[in-house]
């Protein structure tokens, strides 16, 4: 029988972690394929995406937020927004969901060895970057990369994703974390202001450095502008894009920017590519 690329595999939600509460709630779901063989064969690279579905409620594309070095599971961090994501937020550990993928291109983590990496994230945009953070920080990989700087912000301290993980990272010597929130809050001791401004304040040196950014479109725009100001070249700047998707495999037609489909030709693009891309972003 021909394989049906639209049909997901079943996975069990092994763990649900509440990242953000309230109106813009975010949860991280740890998923394990129910078929052991499928789990063993499921391999991905940082930056790739998966289609996750609460059966009966639809399907949506998410960046894998866990590192490929964790082979027993995959994680996605989901903001509650539409029908499927709201249904996912109502699930409990042990529930079943559908998983298809991995899809799309990826961050060139192999090619970035011996380089410094600056991560610039905003809100839920930290999810795909977390995969690279945890990959480069993994014991067997850490000494293959230079300085690691994480510049991450959200609207409020509640809206920051992965708070506990950042608290742990801040104790480490081999990675620098620069957090920010958009408006003043009592008890907040780190930077107050937008992510692009925090980037200019931190001023990461561009020499031998790769910058990867993900967040709201407006943030990405100013982050790229500021990175260029800091001396980064287009080839040193990478982002991962979002689009509405249905099939995830370049057939259903909707996620194109020009002649490229974000689901299969992206989601990762360098600024050198983006500059030459004429299309609706």
């Amino acid at each position, binding site marked *: 029988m021909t*394989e049906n690329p*639209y049909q997901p595999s079943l996975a069990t939600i092994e763990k649900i972690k509440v990242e953000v509460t309230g109106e813009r709630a975010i949860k991280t779901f740890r998923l394990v394929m129910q078929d052991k063989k499928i789990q063993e064969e499921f391999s991905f690279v940082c930056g790739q995406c998966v289609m996750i579905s609460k059966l009966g409620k639809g399907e*949506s594309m998410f960046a894998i937020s866990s590192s490929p070095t964790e082979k027993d599971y995959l994680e996605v961090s989901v903001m509650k927004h539409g029908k499927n994501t709201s249904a996912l937020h109502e699930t409990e550990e042990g529930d079943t969901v559908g998983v298809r993928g991995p899809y799309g291109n990826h961050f060139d983590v192999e090619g970035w060895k011996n380089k410094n990496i600056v991560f610039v994230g905003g809100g839920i945009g930290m999810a795909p970057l977390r995969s690279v953070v945890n990959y480069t920080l993994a014991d067997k990989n850490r000494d293959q990369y230079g300085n690691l700087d994480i510049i991450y912000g959200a609207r409020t301290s509640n809206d920051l994703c992965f708070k506990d993980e950042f608290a742990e990272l801040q104790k480490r010597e081999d990675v620098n974390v620069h957090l920010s929130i958009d408006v003043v809050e009592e008890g907040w001791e780190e930077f107050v202001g937008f992510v692009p401004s925090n980037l200019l304040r931190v001023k990461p040196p561009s020499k031998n450095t790769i910058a990867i950014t993900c967040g709201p479109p407006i943030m990405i725009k100013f982050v790229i502008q500021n990175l260029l100001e800091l001396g980064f070249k287009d080839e040193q700047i990478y982002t991962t894009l979002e689009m509405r998707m249905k099939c995830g*495999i370049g*057939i259903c037609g*909707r996620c194109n920017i020009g002649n490229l489909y974000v689901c299969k030709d992206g989601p990762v693009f360098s600024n050198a590519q983006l500059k030459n891309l004429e299309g609706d972003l």
Partner: protein
Amino acid sequence: MESLVISKENFPEIINTIIKSYRLFAPTEENGFSGFNIIKDYSEMDLSYLNSRMPPKAILFNQTETLFLMKPGAKGSIKPKEIRNEKTAIFAIRPCDAKGFRILDPVFLGNYVDPLYKANRDNSVLIGLSCNQPDSSCFCTSFGDSPASGKYVDILFTDIEEKYLVEVMTEKGKGFVNDFSRFFSPASPNQIEAKNAKEEEAIKLIKRNLKVEGIEEKMDKMFDHPIWEEYAKKCIGCGTCTYLCPTCHCFDMQDESTLDKGARVRTWDACMFPEYTMHASGHNPRPARMHRVRNRFYHKYSYYPKNSGVIACTGCGRCIRYCPVNIDIIELMNRVSEMEL
């Protein structure tokens, strides 16, 4: 290529014989329009048609179809879709619509194979019928094709008055003709000549030409040109052009479920609708009609050729014939072609 003939007296009998072993789609009259439907008897067929309103792409790529079944809920499960392999023949498909499948093949049979389209494609014999009377909206010749082209079908019928000339174009077509060999006899040189004469006459009836030469390169420089806004002002965003296009292939996927059973269903979708690209966040990369109109023409004449090496338009003329506000793709693309930048 083998050329045969079948007499018109024998024609009803062959159709009724094919029906016994094939699911036979043929043009029928429905609500004042022509449409491809499964026929159970020769008499249901109506060959007094220019072309069907809905292209026969709907036979291989159904407008709505189930992708798999499921049990929804916390402990949900999936039941694979049974792929049906039904011997199918599509009779009297026009060369332009048959070309549509050739354009759709790289989409559905590329790196990921769509099992539903593939099963339908593999199980279908395309039996073309040459257009002897193209109309004022036809422009297949703009792409180097002909209203009597056998290039994209397995077998091509051409009405040469007292008989049909039958050209066998593929191995699949040969197998089909062999199964019904008693109805056919070899064509004489005169009969082959009669077909060529019909083809020449038909080509002469096509008065309009879309100037495709260099159009992709031209469009590379016209993304921000005001012409797209000009046409978008006329467009009402109904999506008719996309639904009736033999090469449009966009679809939506939705879950339909009750408490204990459900299905993931795909349905044709259209880039003319604002919801088509709307993110969950509310951001829309193509918020204005201009963006959507521009994307449609770019997809046909720039993006698709860049990706698959062929213009995603067959010149069938449906989008011109059925557009409620008379947007004319030939007129628009010729303005693009002739634009001095």
